[in-house]
């Protein structure tokens, strides 16, 4: 295969050519209530070629690898059509050619039966926790990908990437129309071992669903809010991180102006990082899908914008260095600028210091969902507690936080000293490329004047 790819690239008539071939094996076990609703395996092989001709991109995606040469010609033709029309030809920032083979041993050769039996036991724990539990969702997925990447500049890489996730979900009902849920998640760049010993998590999911039946629905209005590390991590990824993706900015000078390096976004204690490798994390990517080596990138340092996330194209356009953030969710897509492991660095406040001077507030925990559109964001907390006179009060539900990114960053007044990272079970979505494995994290953070929607 290596010779075939190298020869095909050498024969390409485009100005720049790259080939990425992905071989993957997946498995999935899904319990819903008392039924095993999903038990499956998949094996896949596919490729994508990308050509640049006269500054225009052409891309071809295919499963039939015997057609590699024909697909290169097709991409070159498309690139020529684009190149002939463009007045702003694409350039790529220079990077050094790399040859490497990154291996990962975890995640292979666990029989499907073992996975099924383990999930069955977790499912049983959830269903047995309380007679109020009416349904469960135990959803296990793993994938082991081997990605071969080569380009016309001499880079040839093979990377093995494992990814395993587990959702332990419980649905509780009071029998009178009040239906609530609780869940726990595991997501790691590893194999089946990552999801062993999760019995306690299964119990917690079921207990939370039951407890949520008695939670109060929060009243709409403005609150001082403490976000737990997971929700704060989702916030920094969704609301701010996407703003730092240069492909979002580089063709829009007015947006780029808001995101000028040096602009102040928050308190001096605020530091935000996107990092390419932290052992065992889902967002890891030793080399990105343009063959650029990973690095640690400060997005915000001491409250000021420090850098953006780049592909080779955006780096060339904006006069920056590529940061190793060009990622594709699979062979069905070309790379676009994406995050990896993104987190707020630890500050100095203890949780006690954060909460004690809040008269009336909300402690919001974990994200149930979230969406952003430019500066506007909306997140629903999985669950929450009211804060009254500096103390944690009763449980709240239906807590949806919303606001303007810039106002909200400026309203972060305390950053905790207790950071942690989360892989979650889904992943990041952008530009039709969904469920890309990423990690988010943060310590607890406190934000003033957050709008919470309610009845």
């Amino acid at each position, binding site marked *: 295969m290596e010779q075939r790819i190298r020869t095909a690239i050498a024969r390409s008539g485009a100005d720049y050519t790259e080939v990425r071939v992905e071989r993957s094996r997946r498995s999935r076990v899904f319990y819903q209530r008392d039924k095993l609703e999903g038990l499956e395996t998949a094996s896949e092989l596919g490729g994508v070629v990308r050509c640049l001709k006269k500054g225009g991109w052409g891309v071809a995606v295919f499963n039939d690898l015997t057609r590699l040469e024909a697909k290169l010609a097709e991409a070159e033709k498309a690139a020529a059509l684009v190149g002939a029309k463009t007045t702003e030809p694409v350039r790529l920032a220079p990077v050094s050619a790399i040859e490497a083979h990154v291996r990962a041993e975890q995640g292979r050769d666990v029989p499907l039966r073992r996975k099924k039996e383990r999930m069955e036991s977790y499912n049983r724990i959830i269903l047995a926790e309380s007679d109020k539990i009416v349904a469960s969702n135990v959803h296990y997925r793993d994938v082991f990908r081997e990605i071969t990447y080569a380009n016309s500049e001499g880079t040839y890489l093979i990377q093995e990437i494992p990814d395993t996730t587990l959702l332990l979900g419980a649905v509780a009902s009071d029998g009178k129309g009040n239906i609530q849920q609780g869940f726990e998640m595991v997501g790691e760049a590893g194999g089946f071992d990552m999801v062993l010993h999760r019995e306690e998590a299964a119990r917690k999911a079921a207990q939370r669903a039951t407890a949520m039946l008695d939670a109060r629905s929060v009243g709409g209005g403005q609150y001082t809010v403490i976000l737990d590390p997971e929700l704060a991590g989702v916030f920094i990824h969704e609301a701010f991180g996407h703003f730092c993706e240069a492909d979002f900015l580089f*063709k829009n000078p*007015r947006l780029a102006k808001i995101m000028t390096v040096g602009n102040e976004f928050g308190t001096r204690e605020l530091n935000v990082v996107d990092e390419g490798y932290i052992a065992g994390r889902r967002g890891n990517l030793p080399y990105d899908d343009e063959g650029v080596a990973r690095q640690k990138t400060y997005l915000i340092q001491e409250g000021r914008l420090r850098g953006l996330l780049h592909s080779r194209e955006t780096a060339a356009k904006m006069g920056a260095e590529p940061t190793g953030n060009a990622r594709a969710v699979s062979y069905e897509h070309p790379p676009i600028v994406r995050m990896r492991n993104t987190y707020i660095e630890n500050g100095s406040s203890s949780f006690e210091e954060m909460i004690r001077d809040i008269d009336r507030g909300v402690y919001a925990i974990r994200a149930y969902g979230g969406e952003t559109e430019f500066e506007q964001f909306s997140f*629903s907390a999985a669950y929450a507690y009211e804060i009254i006179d500096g103390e944690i009060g009763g449980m709240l539900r239906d807590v949806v936080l919303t606001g303007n990114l810039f106002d909200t960053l400026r309203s972060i007044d305390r950053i905790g000293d207790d950071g942690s990272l989360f892989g979650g079970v889904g992943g990041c979505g952008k530009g039709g490329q969904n469920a890309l494995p990423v990690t988010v994290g943060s310590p607890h953070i406190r934000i003033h004047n957050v709008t919470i929607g309610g009845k």
Partner: protein
Amino acid sequence: MDSLLNQAKAKVDRAELYRLERQTTPLAFRTGQLESIHTKQIGGYALRVVWNGHLGYATTTDSAQPEALLDAAMDAAAFGERVSLALPGPRADRGARRYDEDLASAPMEELVALGEQVVAGLESGAPEAETGVFVTRGIDRVSIENTSGLNVSEDRASIEVSVEVSCAQEDDIFIVADSIHARSLATLEADRLVDRVLRNLRWGETLVPAPSGKMPVVFTPRGAIAVLFPLVFGYSGRSVYLGTSPLKGKLGEVMFDPRVSLVDDGTVVDGLGGGGFDDEGVPTRRTPLIAGGEVAGFYYDLRTAELAGVGSTGNGFKGGMLGGADFRALPSASVSNLLLLPGEATLDELIEEVGDGLLVDTVLGLGQGNLSSGDFSNNVAVAYKIERGRIIGRVKNAMLAGNTYRLLNDRVVGIGDCPEWIFGRLFVPPLALSEVNVAAK
């Protein structure tokens, strides 16, 4: 793969082979010019088997090794769920009405010209805005063969144009996104898409403070999805079977305003959600869900229908409640095309009727909130303030909250007469509701 089903027949009780061949051609135009052309040609197989009464499933892209696929599905079936899964038998083909040869064979240059036409329309109407225009042609061939003798295949072609227009100023970004699709180039109303986007941009030129409190809200078809989304969950036969739907046991009861009628209809050729058959080979049909306010039915795939002791309604699609996935996913209960039947008022009449309130076009966080209870809570992405029956400007940083079942019961002001396709599979008119909660910052 041709011999796979014969091999399967000899080894397992029942088997179904699903095959998808998909060619997609996405073109992207940014800042007024063609940015990229992709050509995607993917093909995959999904094999579902019942072996000794147990279910197994496997997928692959590799057509060269049918035995490996059968082995993988049987490996899973060795300890899979016990099912009966009666597969549909042979039937006559209804003919390929979702495939337009002119669209399928249109040269790349013609698709480029279509994108350029939309770009030009937007630029002449809104020269200051940043535009993104995306033209995507999709051609699918779906083939399903099973051991009960079913062997069907359908070609489906579609063209979609979506646009994203943004106007950015210091600390304020106004984005209008919209899309339109058709089964042929001749029937694609690209000008209407441009008009809609420009209309929204005009309405949004002035920024006004968002109101707060309980107020009447008019939803455009796109905005109405926020209200209707819990119904996609609530009408799923799966939710009803699991008891997570509030509609469980309510069949025949009046739960909604008599003007509300909701239908799932996979036979509608224009919708992208349907087909001659679903992803299990069951013929699609028209299933009333709400008939004049009354709970009239739910939608089912084969597996859920079996659990619930009813028949499939031809709603076994790959890709969750909204369908639309490729060969990889197992089919499950999913809407095909969901139609909220139109009323009689124009959008302008609805706006005039509510007097003072909001017009909501796009929300963030669709599907957030408690789908079981019907509570929704969304940030508005694009919304306008209505004063004395007229739109006076755009509002931002506001939350909407309400309960779908409550609002569609006794707070319906009116339903519009001009439905639009949203996500290619929801056909929805404008909707005016009273007493919706709005929380402004």
